[in-house]
């Protein structure tokens, strides 16, 4: 038994290999961004999948084991991972990646937060004190986040500073070009009225000028009830919307209920990398998001 354990340990120690940095990414979009910026210089583990509700992840043993060996933890922050990350980091026994430490990065700290609640009361549902954490739906946010993340990686791995600097410059150029393309394609979406299933799209709406007129969840994080959905339906009869948006990880039932009655399109958005077949990287994520939104206009 002991020999087995010992050889297991030695085996995995040797598999730590010589990759420059070991990155623990909380969500797929940050794994993808880290890959853009680090290339082969990072071994990246993604803690959650595109089909998982990021609010509802457990502090699984596997996550603790991965955090133990991480040099850098890249997360959204703004309390999105509040239900599991603090415990994972504490149990990991890894001093470097504790909040505020040299190996801890929160994307939300680099962008302007929307929907910061004027008051904090759980009577308002599962609100986040620092604002809506779903920042990855606005493609513009990736520029300041990429900049801040690249700085962090240069600090963690100073030997490869020029590598990160170069990749950051390349990313910024490509991303600006892509932004211009997406914004041009999405021009017909300006001012279009939409319904959202969860308050997960304020950044997307802010970016593309969508007008959110109703939310299917009565309060953030609360399941839509039949009576609430009827109220939404009333709103839609007075103020029609073109489509109802939901993230890939969300149940299609509430959206379907509305589309059948209000005769509008239900649009499932990938929400993050891996949320659809086309969303294989960050570019694919927004290509597909814009394409699906445009389909909703038909």
């Amino acid at each position, binding site marked *: 038994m002991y020999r087995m354990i010992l050889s297991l340990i030695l085996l995995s120690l040797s*598999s730590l290999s010589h990759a420059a940095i070991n990155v623990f990414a909380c969500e797929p979009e940050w794994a993808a961004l880290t890959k853009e910026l680090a290339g082969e210089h990072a071994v990246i583990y993604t803690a959650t999948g595109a089909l*998982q*509700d990021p609010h509802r992840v457990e502090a699984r*043993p596997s996550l*603790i084991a991965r955090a133990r060996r991480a040099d850098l933890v890249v997360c959204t922050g703004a309390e999105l991972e509040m239900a599991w990350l603090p415990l*994972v980091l504490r149990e990991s*026994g890894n001093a*470097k990646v504790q909040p505020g430490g040299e190996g801890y990065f929160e994307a939300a700290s680099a962008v302007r937060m929307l929907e*910061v609640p004027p008051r904090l009361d759980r009577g308002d549902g599962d609100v986040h004190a620092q604002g809506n954490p779903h920042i990855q739906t606005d493609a513009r946010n990736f520029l*300041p986040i990429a900049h801040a993340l690249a700085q962090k990686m240069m600090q963690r791995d100073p030997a490869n500073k020029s590598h990160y600097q170069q990749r950051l410059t390349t990313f910024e150029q490509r991303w600006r070009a892509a932004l211009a393309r997406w914004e041009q394609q999405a021009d017909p979406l300006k001012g279009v009225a939409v319904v959202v299933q969860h308050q997960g799209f304020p950044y997307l709406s802010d970016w593309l000028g969508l007008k959110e007129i109703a939310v299917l969840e009565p309060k953030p994080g609360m399941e839509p009830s039949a009576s609430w959905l009827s109220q939404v339906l009333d709103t839609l009869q007075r103020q029609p919307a073109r489509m109802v948006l939901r993230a890939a990880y969300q149940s299609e039932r509430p959206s379907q209920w509305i589309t059948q009655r209000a005769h509008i399109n239900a649009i499932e958005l990938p929400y993050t990398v891996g949320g659809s077949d086309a969303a294989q990287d960050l570019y694919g994520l927004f290509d597909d998001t814009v394409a699906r939104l445009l389909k909703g206009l038909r």
Partner: protein
Amino acid sequence: MFRTISLCGAMLLCQSSYAAGNESAFNPAFSLILSGSYGSLQQDPATPATGFAMNPYPGHEQGFNLGESEMGISANIDPQFRGAATLALDPAGGVSVENAFVQTTAFGDGLNLKFGRFFSGLGYLNEQHAHAWDFTDQPLVYAVLWENQLGEDGVQLKWLAPTEMFLEFGAEAGKGRGFPGSARAKNGSGAGVLFVHVGDDIGIEQSWRAGLSLHRTRAVERESDDVPDLLGNSVSTAFTGDSRTTGLDVVWKYAPNGNLKERYLKLQGEYFRRSENGDLRYDTAGANISDSYAVIQSGWYAQAVYQFMPRWRTALRYDRLDPGIASVGAANAANVIADYAFKPSRTTLMLDYSPSEFSRIRLQLAHDNSRQGLPDNQFFVQYIMSLGAHGAHSY
């Protein structure tokens, strides 16, 4: 860092969400759990499980009851330490300290040191607070072998191996204040625990954890009242001797696409086996005869929890105990019952509804066959509400 700030300034985008210039900004996270229940039982809940009269038997409450309200306070103390305390408010009045510990945050190398009063890391359920239980009560094996939960005053050191798979080793040394130990005024440690946990994911949909625990303590004059004897009386006894317990635990969880919000299934089981060896003083208030006593008690449970749609869960649990056959010294052979020839069991069914992550309402039905000749059908309604800071739950 400076680059980030200047970037924020240039784009006029960033705002400070930490602006707070008063003392309360450093207040620790505070949470309060409110819970209560209604219980309907056919038998007297004070009657212990057959063969376990010398063990604790935390029974159930009948009628309307305020459960224990639990107050939790936690915060980082400084860059090295974090402190947490849980105070239980007894409905009859009084406050007891459930947990009050300090843990290190900056050791690194996978080491975590905890000291103070804490729930022991043995088994799977032992560390979980009552509000996180999947049933209104603990499995029988936890009730009789650990008086629901083993709390310890002492030190815990855990080391997480730097392996791909989760592999954690833990050791505890403590006062031995809770059953099966008996707190004694002495130097050194009164109880020791060793445990190892392994766990991993299987794809994105399944995860598991398994554990092995060893507990060792010594009981001195551990008194029990109302213990039945061979003469048909109820007497008081006192046990002095060594107590060694081995435990095995396994948990497996499955969620389609790994999305716990929609549906999930959790299977878990634990087995404990305790060997006690020493002297038993029979009828401490009367005959007062002391002779050797050794017994192996064991028990297990298996349960399944199924969330069949968001917010709704149902669960089934089966419990079984084995009081063992005791070796009783000659002087007490005609007094102390050695073989009860009965194995207590119980089947429990649970349904709960959680309007949000912070509230839960539960119904529970149990067919309890833990007392020979006294089958009991039990019915419970329970609410569990959590206010304030809502910390992360363990796996």
